[in-house]
């Protein structure tokens, strides 16, 4: 909605508008604050605890602002130098001490890179595979169209737990164990049904006549999609990209099964590895969580404006 415009001729009307505008601003402010509290509360705690020592994190009541903020959790992640692990260089203490960071901390950045590669590949493939399918289902009347939609949906109604073992068999038979390609392929299968679903519903909301106009204007189906539908669906494309990226970024169960070494392990696996039979460092895991959040949020900020810009106005009538 456009900002309220004032009608200069009518004083009464202007006063009324001003009251409405004030009320609007106030409610926006109040709701924003409530929302921030709800969303940021846990995040603030995540951030704060990542700067605390393991001893401080268990204080009662909690220290919202660290007494002695420490950067060592982050130092361990960013500056740990690779050393050959021998009896002499091994870490000896118990991680609970807080003075100790697991040596796998140095795997965090490489694993993040793996996660990034996987997520980006999944996003690209999602668009490549999902966009044409969604367009076809939304705008082309072909035999078996309804069937196609429900078939695609069917692939996502079965709980992943039941699919872990057969997924593993497929990946093993494809020879992809411990390779990031295994994750790209499976995440694609996991995300693409919803990608298609989201895009179908968006494409359907675009007027049919736009499609017809483009085709009469000389576009093949592919050109119609590229030149007319894609530019108009940027918001939903960005939503879909975020969806595919974050689903891949966060996935844990399948990555755990398919990957074994840092050649292919993704961020969630390394983070989960910071917990062990003997110990866990919450502050360190929280630091890892903080770092994990950064790339997706940066991406989201970069693409955010495409989500909130409406593009379809003016297509029809008026």
């Amino acid at each position, binding site marked *: 909605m456009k900002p309220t415009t004032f009608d200069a001729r009518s004083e009464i009307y202007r006063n009324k508008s001003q009251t409405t505008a004030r009320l609007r601003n106030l409610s926006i402010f109040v709701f924003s604050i409530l929302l921030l509290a709800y969303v940021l509360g846990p995040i603030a705690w995540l951030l704060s605890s990542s700067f605390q020592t393991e001893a401080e994190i268990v204080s009662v009541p909690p220290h919202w602002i660290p007494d002695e903020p420490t950067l060592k959790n982050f130092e361990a992640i960013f500056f740990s130098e690779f050393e050959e692990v021998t009896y002499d260089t091994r870490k000896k203490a118990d991680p609970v001490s807080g003075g100790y960071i697991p040596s796998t901390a140095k795997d965090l950045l490489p694993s993040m890179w793996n996660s990034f590669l996987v997520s980006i590949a999944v996003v690209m493939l999602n668009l490549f595979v999902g966009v044409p399918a969604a367009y076809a289902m939304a705008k082309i009347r072909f035999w078996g169209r309804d069937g196609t939609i429900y078939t695609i949906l069917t692939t996502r109604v079965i709980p992943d737990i039941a699919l872990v073992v057969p997924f593993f068999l497929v990946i093993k038979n494809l020879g992809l164990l411990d390779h990031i390609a295994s994750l790209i392929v499976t995440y694609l299968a996991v995300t693409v049904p919803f990608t298609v679903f989201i895009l179908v519903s968006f494409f359907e909301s675009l007027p049919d006549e736009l499609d017809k106009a483009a085709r009469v204007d000389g576009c093949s189906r592919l050109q119609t999609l590229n030149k007319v539908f894609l530019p108009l669906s940027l918001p939903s494309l960005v939503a879909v990209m975020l969806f595919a990226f974050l689903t891949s970024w966060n996935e844990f169960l399948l990555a755990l099964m398919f990957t074994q070494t840092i050649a292919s392990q993704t961020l969630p696996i390394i983070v989960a590895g910071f917990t062990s*039979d*003997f110990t866990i460092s919450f502050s360190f895991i929280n630091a890892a969580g903080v770092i994990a959040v950064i790339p997706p949020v940066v991406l989201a900020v970069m693409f955010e404006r495409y989500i909130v810009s409406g593009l379809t106005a003016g297509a029809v009538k008026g």
Partner: protein
Amino acid sequence: MSNQFKNLNRRDFLKKTAAAGALGALGANGLITQAMAAGDTVHFMAWSAAVDLVKSHVAEFQKVTGINVNYSNAPWAQYRDNLITKFVGNAPIDMMWVSDAWLPEWAEAGWIKPVDKFDNLMKYNAEAEKFCNDSMTYKGSQYGLTYYTDFMAFLYDDEALKKAGISNPPKSWDEVTEQCLKIKNAGIAEYPLMLALAQESWLIEFLAAMTYSHGGNFTDDKGNSIMQDPKEGAVRALQWVVDAVHKHKIVSPASVEIGELTGLKAFASGNHAFALEPKYRMRTLNDPKQSKIAGRVKQALMPMGMDGSHATVGWMRFHGMSASAAADKTRAENTARLIEWFGGKANGEYKFQKYLFTDIGAGFGVKPLFNDADVQNAYNSYADVNIIKEQQALARKKDVVTPWFGEWNEVHGSSWQAAILQKATPAEAMAKAGKKWDELKKEMG
């Protein structure tokens, strides 16, 4: 009606289904070639504990033997699921860490194989704790060498007791109640006894320790359930916990959500006077860098219940050999050498078990290490070796470790929790657990 239809064994089943998926064509020469099936490499899978120590020990092994080791690990919480998937999917694994509780089911499933025929491994049995050897044995065969072993210990904060005017730690559970009330009334701790009873893999160890110290058993010599028998200890142990939570209020009602690790942190923060903890936690608890009650934590023998003893539960984890490794002579031999390197002697000493103890405090399963100077020094710095030895001798294997342990364990754990939440009486709860046991035994025994 079912048996007239085809009886497949699991391997056929998998083969047929894989073929049905028409994946053979795709799979035979996978898109990316794997170095994983190579015979010279030993694939070693562990949970992510003591990662650096394992790495250093593996590096030394490679240097000494020239055998390549592919070491990978998974978080403890998902380790078992991960391995099951890999076993079912026939992924290359040669040596892996196994918990005593999983031995029967993994052996029955045909995933791990006995190591009896390797003399270089069996020779260590003479120096090993009998408890460990028993725990690695199923149907008369031994399945590996010890990785670590420990038992549930009764710990107390000496100073808290003194403050409340208590000079000696409790000898029986009734005394525990008395002393707790004293401490509670003195305002030293709201919930003097820390019990970590959340649903997790530790739960059975706590419950078994409570049950054994109350003189109870879960099963009799023939493996039939007696846990539900009110004359036996389990019901009494549970009744004691329920009373402690609701009648005396000396154990927090939140104990059903407290895991072992959180409980440890709570105890280390000085919030409690008594705690049931794995013995190796004494190292952490008496370390000033990690604990606010460092130097004050002492061990007492497990309190006795009525007709009870000071018995506690023990557990162990071991290095096992996979069925696929055992099937191939070279692979089996290489794997056995790695098992020896970890569970037995490396370069003439029990190096891994020793370092695991000095690094983390995890108990070892070979007696000679008690005489090691480093070990003695370490122990004496935070614990009383005599009590440890005495308690260790009273540690008992869980009498419920069977192929259906996992399934029963779920029901048993939630029965205890239900009783603590007062959704069932202790008798009802244990009756449910016992009934489940009988069903499973009948079905699978």
